[in-house]
């Protein structure tokens, strides 16, 4: 069977070969082929050679790493530069090269993921580099596709334009971030997860509620956000309090469901153990059932870290003071400043990912004993 890496290399080589014969695009009405552009031609030929080297097993180790790091990225950069020259009328050959350099970059990522770094810091570094590379490619492809196909910027601006806007609007972005993330999201998240956790315990503690409240809990907590948001604005005012309330409602249900499921996961023998000590409810909760519920609870905390962002932002559609990420997004869409919308989305994504990452680190520290971490 062919390895994943060789499959990638083969596909990249085939695409480069295709690019040799397919048209690239038009410059001033004249059709252009790969042979008319020494730079691109050189790139395609080197890539074919490298792919052959990889498949035949001759290109390995550090040489392969460096080549597969430099080659596709330099190529992509050059392809990007050619974008303007080609009159925006790009044809199949061009896209073949784009695909090929993407696959080549993937080979690099695959090689990197296969490494088992010795030191912890190196391991961390790889853990960052791989997803960042993936992101870089996402942006590259986005840039090339949007510009190559001439998508109107009011529909989807290219990342470069978003970046410029981002850099120019840091003050606004920071103010919005404070309003939405630091106030509404964090407070709502803490209260939502906290109250759901306590409810789960209450439900668990009182069998009557377990049978009575859980079905109702499902009902209330699944209230659609857009129905709830205006009501919250009505009840808690225009400022962040009403957004935090929406976040509470959004995060409540996942936490409740997961905690209840987690509390019931401990095995019969583990529970019997506690019974033999005549452990009280709270003792067996704290010493047995909560620790074994942790994997589930962290699941909810992670899912909620992203839901909370969404909740707070959307809630701002239904009335806010004129600051906040959701406010900005909805306003700037209406003003056709879609680049600003995406700059705001980038902030949301960065903040949300960081938030999730923090939860992940805490999870690792708390549930190191769970097989999902022990097994690698």
């Amino acid at each position, binding site marked *: 069977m062919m390895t994943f890496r060789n499959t990638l290399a083969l596909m990249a080589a085939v695409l480069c070969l295709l690019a040799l014969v397919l048209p690239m695009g038009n410059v001033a009405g004249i059709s252009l082929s790969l042979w008319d552009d020494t730079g691109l031609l050189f790139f395609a030929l080197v890539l074919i050679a490298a792919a052959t080297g990889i498949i035949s097993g001759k290109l390995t180790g550090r040489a392969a790493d460096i080549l597969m790091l430099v080659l596709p990225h330099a190529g992509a950069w050059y392809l990007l530069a050619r974008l303007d020259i080609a009159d925006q009328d790009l044809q199949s050959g061009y896209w073949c090269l784009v695909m090929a350099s993407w696959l080549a970059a993937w080979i690099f990522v695959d090689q990197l993921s296969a490494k088992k770094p010795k030191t912890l810091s190196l391991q961390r570094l790889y853990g960052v580099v791989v997803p960042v590379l993936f992101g870089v490619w996402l942006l590259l492809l986005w840039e090339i596709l949007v510009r190559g196909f001439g998508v109107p910027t009011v529909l989807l601006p290219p990342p470069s334009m978003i970046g410029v806007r981002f850099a120019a609007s840091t003050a606004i972005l920071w103010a919005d971030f404070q309003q939405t993330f630091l106030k509404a999201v964090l407070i709502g998240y803490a209260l939502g997860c906290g109250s759901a956790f306590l409810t789960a315990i209450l439900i668990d503690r009182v069998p009557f509620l377990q049978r009575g409240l859980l079905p109702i809990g499902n009902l209330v907590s699944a209230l659609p956000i857009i129905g709830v948001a205006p009501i919250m604005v009505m009840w808690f005012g225009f400022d962040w309090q009403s957004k935090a309330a929406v976040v509470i409602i959004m995060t409540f249900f996942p936490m409740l469901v997961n905690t209840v499921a987690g509390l019931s996961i401990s095995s019969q023998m583990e529970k019997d153990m506690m019974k033999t000590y005549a452990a009280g409810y709270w003792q067996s909760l704290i010493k047995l059932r909560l620790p074994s519920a942790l994997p589930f609870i962290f699941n909810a905390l992670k899912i909620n870290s992203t839901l909370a962002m969404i909740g707070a932002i959307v809630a701002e559609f239904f009335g806010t003071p004129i600051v906040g990420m959701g406010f900005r997004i909805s306003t700037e*869409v209406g003003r056709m400043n879609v680049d600003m919308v995406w700059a705001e989305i980038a902030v949301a994504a960065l903040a949300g990912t960081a938030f999730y990452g923090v939860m992940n680190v805490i999870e690792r520290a708390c549930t190191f004993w769970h097989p999902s971490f022990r097994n690698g």
Partner: protein
Amino acid sequence: ADTVNLQLKWVTQAQFAGYYVAADKGFYEAVDLDVNIKPGGPDIAPPQVIAGGGADVIVDWMPSALASREKGVPLVNIAQPFKTSGMMLTCRKETGITGPADFKGKTLGVWFFGNEYPFLSWMSKLDIPTNGGADGVSVLKQGFNVDPLLQKQADCVSTMTYNEYWQVIDAGVPEDELVVFKYEEQGVATLEDGLYVLEDNLKDPAFVDKMARFVSASMKGWEWARENPEEAALIVLENDGTGAQTEKHQVRMMGEINKLTAGSDGKLDPADYERTVATLLGGGSDPVITKQPEGAWSHAVVDMIK
């Protein structure tokens, strides 16, 4: 028949009665058109829809259309069925507001999403900052309804003569407890519901012909609506997919809308246009548009109508 996709600015209501009437009464069919009316909503930006190819012609307010034009969506006004602006600011009397000078230190509800331009122009004309403080006004992004006024979270809210104002009344607040500021009367009126298309399309005579048929049939619809307001309201009601509108409200809205369309044969009056542009350019530190627009309107379509 040629198909025309029309993107409205807002949900199905009497504000768009002319188009629904024209469709319902067969005016479009008569000129060999198959018009597909797409209702809007709170988050639909018609310029975006037309840029994405989702519509051939859109209903939009001129400030938003001109701003979009600057952002690279080359919108051109081909017809202007609304002569007068229906926008106003409605305040509770008990707040002590009697004139624009009293706004300072107050909280005002404003619609954003491209509808804030007239308000911003007005404030800049009054020289009132919009970022709070004792000398400025606090601005709230107002939601879909007039709750902020009823709940006393805002001192004034934006209303349309034909819609939100009556919601305040319906909620039990008598007219004599309200103070209203019509943009028309404040001299900051901007043109509302006009028909816009993409500039490039106007180079195609077939498209211009199609639009000419569309505009003429639509204007017939508006005329019919002015003559038969109650039936027109019922036609709108029939087309409402949500089933949430009430007859009482739509009939009343039809009456108010007819006041705004009165005096327009569809042809944009360049003077109105100049007035709107002047208001927008006077936007102070954060002007809505930065320079005099070029070619933002065309009589090519209306001129073709015999």
